[in-house]
């Protein structure tokens, strides 16, 4: 039930304060004819509709009802939200409100969008609180002090016949802990202020990271889509480049293909195009075979799963078009990985090989980075692998991609601790390097890093390389091949590290290059 166009014309005329006669005169029709239009007894369109919109000073879409249709749909979405569900507002209510009180309807819609944005901000802040190492340490410190105060206060209350010396000690303890708690609380408030300011400039990439972190880097809908696509086209493991190329050509020729996404428009030249036309053959070598297969698969996903990718990025955590575009590319890559490395088969091989990334890379024809990335996504609740964190740096050491591991203190951006093996690895390309690290909170991790050359050096082109690092909790390290011959039970031999200099509390570290933001902790 859309509001009839005549009713909309009448409403806008009344809002404007015009009589039928004056409006009819200004557009050179008779008042009786305008009356028939407003009563929906005559069609209106073309030049006359333009004239009416012009005289009523409204957008043409508002008169034709296109804007109304969008608004009605948006109000229906708002009415379905748990926030308004108790009001039992129906679809008809949305129609009625848009037809009779259009400005109120828009105001309600604006409020609802504001509410969604605020919820997304709160959610992003909550995610940040969980992931930020400094917050984590401050909160832990507060909880410890509150525990000591509460427990000691209960003792003082419940044990009246205590020796005076002991009572004095407990009294002093409460006093000292309370004072220290106040300092930590002030530090926390200062961090909150900083965090809120930073959030307003939150980058689209961060929003995408929040989305991925929120979903534990596991997307069952994409896993299902990948399985369906493999079955539909009989793709084997691993599919050959020729097979993928033919499949892509077939799909591109299919005129029924609807709504493909274009996830490659902002990528580097050569990425995402077919091997034949993606690089200048005279000056540049083609990408490695693993990369070509991955690119072809991404194009197939873009053509076949565009609607799914778009729907999945219609998420309140993604507040800008740029964030949605980045998310589409990330989810596209996820789906491509799920096609090339099918979940259950890959998990089984990963466990059998003790997560040997190079072995899996050869078995599946993937690159070290593709395999490492896929290992991070093995988080299905009913069949999961070891939880891994993932980091990638460019040749300058700048973090270009990360998937956090719960508990591991990782910087959100910039550079990580210079002692991490990810930086040493760049000095020895193509070799897997490993390291056991200890953080100041006593947590210990196994780091595995490898620097891969993505484009070999020629006379005209310098080589391009990136370093990928996987991290796992030391408790699970013995399930990996990388723990072989390492002394996991000798923490004194660990490398003492932090997340990054500005987040690290090791004041005396000889490798510190920037002051810590955590000075107030001490």
């Amino acid at each position, binding site marked *: 039930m859309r509001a009839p166009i005549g009713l909309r014309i009448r409403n806008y005329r009344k809002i404007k304060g015009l009589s039928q006669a004056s409006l009819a005169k200004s557009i050179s029709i008779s008042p009786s004819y305008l009356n028939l239009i407003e009563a929906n007894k005559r069609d209106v369109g073309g030049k006359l509709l333009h004239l009416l919109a012009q005289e009523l000073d409204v957008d043409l879409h508002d008169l034709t009802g296109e804007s109304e249709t969008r608004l009605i749909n948006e109000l229906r979405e708002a009415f379905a939200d748990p926030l308004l569900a108790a009001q039992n507002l129906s679809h008809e209510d949305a129609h009625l409100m848009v037809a009779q009180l259009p400005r109120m309807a828009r105001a309600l819609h604006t409020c609802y969008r504001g509410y969604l944005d605020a919820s997304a901000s709160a959610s992003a802040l909550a995610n940040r609180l969980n992931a930020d190492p400094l917050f984590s340490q401050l909160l832990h410190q507060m909880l410890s002090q509150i525990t000591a105060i509460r*427990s000691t206060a209960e003792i003082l209350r419940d044990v009246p016949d205590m020796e005076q010396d002991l009572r004095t000690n407990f009294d002093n303890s409460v006093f000292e802990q309370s004072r220290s708690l106040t300092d930590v609380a002030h530090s926390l408030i200062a961090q909150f202020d900083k965090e809120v300011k930073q959030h307003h400039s939150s980058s689209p990439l961060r929003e995408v990271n929040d989305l991925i972190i929120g979903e534990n880097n596991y997307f069952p809908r994409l896993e299902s889509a990948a399985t369906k696509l493999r079955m539909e086209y009989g793709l084997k493991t691993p599919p050959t480049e020729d097979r993928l190329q033919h499949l892509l050509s077939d799909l591109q020729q299919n005129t029924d293909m609807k709504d493909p996404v274009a996830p490659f428009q902002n990528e580097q030249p050569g990425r995402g195009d077919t091997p034949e036309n993606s690089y200048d053959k005279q000056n540049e070598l083609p990408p490695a075979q693993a990369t070509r297969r991955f690119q072809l698969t991404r194009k197939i996903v873009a053509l076949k799963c565009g609607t799914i990718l778009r729907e999945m990025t219609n998420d309140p955590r993604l507040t800008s078009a740029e964030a949605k575009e980045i998310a589409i590319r990330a989810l596209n890559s996820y789906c491509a990985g799920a096609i090339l490395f099918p979940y259950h088969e890959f998990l089984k091989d990963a466990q059998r090989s003790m997560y040997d990334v190079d072995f899996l890379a050869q078995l599946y024809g993937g690159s070290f980075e593709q395999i490492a990335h896929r290992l991070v996504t093995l988080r299905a609740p009913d069949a999961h692998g070891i939880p891994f964190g993932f980091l990638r740096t460019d040749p300058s050491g700048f973090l270009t991609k990360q998937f956090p591991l719960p*508990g591991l203190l990782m910087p959100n951006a910039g550079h990580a601790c210079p002692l991490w093996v990810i930086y040493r690895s760049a000095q020895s390309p193509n070799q897997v390097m490993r390291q056991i690290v200890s953080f100041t909170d006593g947590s210990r991790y196994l780091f595995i890093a490898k620097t891969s050359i993505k484009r070999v050096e020629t006379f005209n082109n310098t080589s391009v390389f990136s370093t990928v690092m996987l991290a796992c909790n030391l408790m699970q390290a013995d399930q990996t091949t990388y723990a072989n011959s390492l002394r996991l039970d000798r923490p004194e031999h660990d490398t003492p590290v932090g997340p990054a200099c500005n987040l690290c509390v090791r004041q005396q570290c000889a490798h510190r290059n920037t002051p810590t933001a955590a000075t107030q902790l001490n």
Partner: protein
Amino acid sequence: MMASGSPDILIVEDEPAILTSLEFILQHAGWKTHSVTDGEAAIKSVQAGQPKIVVLDLMLPRRNGFEVLKVIRRQPATKELPVLILTAKGQQQDKQTARELGASDFITKPYANTDVVEAVANLIGQPPKAVPAP
């Protein structure tokens, strides 16, 4: 701090104020306690003389609480030893990891003293001599 005789409870906690109050409430409840402040010492203590229960913090220097728990569960002599986790790390992932590694019970800080005393009593099957009022 060691009470006379072999301990009933090994307390592993690196925060001095919390350690002091834990020692007091558990001794006040009638049990003998022995305390250490890092993970390495905890493993040595468990191997040296088996307590009836280990009250274990997670964030510890020199091998964290998860590692200590894992070592305890791997040793045939201690694999059935009750381990009560007391920690400020109350995230679901930590609880799940503790469960998977074989923790007997999990209490999140800040706690009421009675919660700790009751959990210990349940796990060792021995009622306390005195229970602080809730």
